[in-house]
């Protein structure tokens, strides 16, 4: 199969790039290993208080369906159930599960998104234990409740978001707890660290963070700032948020029947066993990281950027990489929300059109406009997944400039 642009990942980033490119008249094939298009967007359902009233609801499933419908109408091909296992050296991709083995293309966009970090707890291999993201997919994509009584372990923007979504879907969320302290949880098992991260993620003090979070789901908000460091749980959308208690074991024979919790000291040590809580499902959350396997295997250097969720591929301001004709967009460049992924996908689309000489002379301003739109989407994001994302983006830009100066072939877009 031959096309102009092969796009790996039919999430918001890949789809919005496909839309732009197909409308410009380029041949586009979008590939995704999942059985349907939409990526992580399909699981999202929340309200954004930073938007004007009337525009606040973010119904990811509806947005994903509209976007993939538009992409097809514009003439692009979307192939689902197809895994990409290598970026072809010339250009294009090798695939598995599709109508052929290779898609030859003049440019490739890698929009593989993010993956979840594991957060092991003793008993985490018992059926009924799943990642927070899996519970989100069960509830919001498939309309299946992951359990009747659910315990969440791991406190971060994703786990709090998913807990709220599960509650909305009718699940009894017994509480959100710290993960078991130890080497594997590291700092995410320390109460003070967790509070600091949460408030920095929302660019504000812990009390204000919870207030805003309360608004997000329209739930009741009580004055909790002062109680954050005490043993009493904070209350978020009516769900107890335990900043001084951890899940230390999951129990059950054939499937989960309970969890054991413990009180945690300020410096993250188990003080004493607390109680056994009945539950039929447990969600574990360890945060998100960019899924870079494919782009890294193509030789693209990875740099460590904790503010973006871990190791990210080195890339330029127009989402280009060191490999000519290979571009990136979305969470693979760093963990941010779906609106940012959509804006980045559009930017990658414009950038690829320019690379292929298909932007048209009078249209250079489209590139500047697309860059601006990414900035705007960032400002309007209700939550940052990692504090320090802005600083990390700047650092990355500086690294890219240094590479360009040091290399002869930095002639892109």
């Amino acid at each position, binding site marked *: 199969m031959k096309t102009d642009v092969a796009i790996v990942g039919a999430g918001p980033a890949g789809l919005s790039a496909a839309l732009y490119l197909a409308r410009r008249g380029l041949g586009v094939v979008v590939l995704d*290993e999942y059985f349907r298009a939409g990526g992580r967007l399909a699981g999202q359902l929340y309200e954004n208080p930073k938007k004007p009233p009337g525009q606040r609801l973010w119904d990811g499933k509806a947005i994903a369906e509209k976007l993939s419908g538009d992409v097809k109408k514009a003439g692009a091909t979307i192939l689902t159930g197809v*895994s*990409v*296992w*290598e970026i072809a050296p010339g250009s294009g991709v*090798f695939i*598995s599960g599709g109508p052929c*083995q290779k898609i030859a293309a003049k440019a490739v966009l890698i929009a593989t998104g993010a*993956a979840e*970090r*594991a957060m*092991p707890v*003793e008993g*985490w*291999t018992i059926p009924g234990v799943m990642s927070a993201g899996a519970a989100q997919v069960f509830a919001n994509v498939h309309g299946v409740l992951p359990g009747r009584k659910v315990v969440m372990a791991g406190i971060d923007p994703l786990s709090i978001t998913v807990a709220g979504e599960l509650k909305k879907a009718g699940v009894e969320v017994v509480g959100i707890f710290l993960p*078991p302290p*130890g*080497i*594997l949880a*590291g700092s995410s098992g320390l109460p003070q660290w967790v509070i600091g991260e949460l408030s920095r993620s929302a660019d504000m003090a812990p009390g204000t963070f919870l207030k805003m979070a309360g608004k997000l789901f329209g739930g009741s908000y009580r004055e909790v700032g002062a109680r954050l460091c005490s043993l009493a749980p904070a209350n978020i959308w009516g769900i107890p948020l335990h900043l001084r208690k951890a899940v*230390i*074991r999951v129990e059950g024979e054939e499937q989960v029947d309970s969890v054991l919790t413990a009180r945690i000291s300020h410096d993250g040590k188990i003080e004493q066993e607390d109680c056994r809580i009945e539950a039929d499902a447990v969600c574990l959350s*360890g945060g998100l*990281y960019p*899924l*870079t*396997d*494919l782009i*890294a*295997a193509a030789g693209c250097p*990875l740099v*460590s950027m*904790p503010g973006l969720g*871990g*190791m990210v591929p080195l890339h330029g301001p127009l989402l280009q990489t060191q490999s000519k004709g290979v571009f990136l967009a979305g969470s693979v460049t760093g963990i941010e929300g779906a609106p940012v992924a959509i804006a980045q996908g559009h930017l990658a689309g414009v950038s690829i059109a320019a690379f292929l000489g298909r932007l048209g002379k009078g249209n250079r301003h489209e590139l500047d406009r697309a860059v601006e739109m990414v900035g705007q989407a960032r400002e309007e994001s209700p939550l940052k997944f990692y504090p320090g994302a802005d600083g990390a983006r700047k650092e990355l830009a500086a690294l890219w400039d240094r590479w360009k100066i040091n290399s002869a072939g930095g002639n892109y877009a």
Partner: protein
Amino acid sequence: MPDDKLIVCRCEEVTLDEIKKAVKDGASTVSGIKKRTRACMGMCQGRVCQSLVKKVLAHESGNQADSIETATSRSPVRPIQLGEII
């Protein structure tokens, strides 16, 4: 928590204790852990457990987790059938 029971790599069923022992045995990289224990070498190719393995390596050697290098990604990055490449 008993480290000998806590599974870190689910694909290959490697416990925390086994990873710690591999570090004592001289492993200082993710690749060293892979060769000694098979952690990160199953179906998911470390997508789930590599960050955990890095944490154990960092902790046992007194370093920061991001100072431990990520194992080199190699294609095929997904499980495929032999017939698809030959």
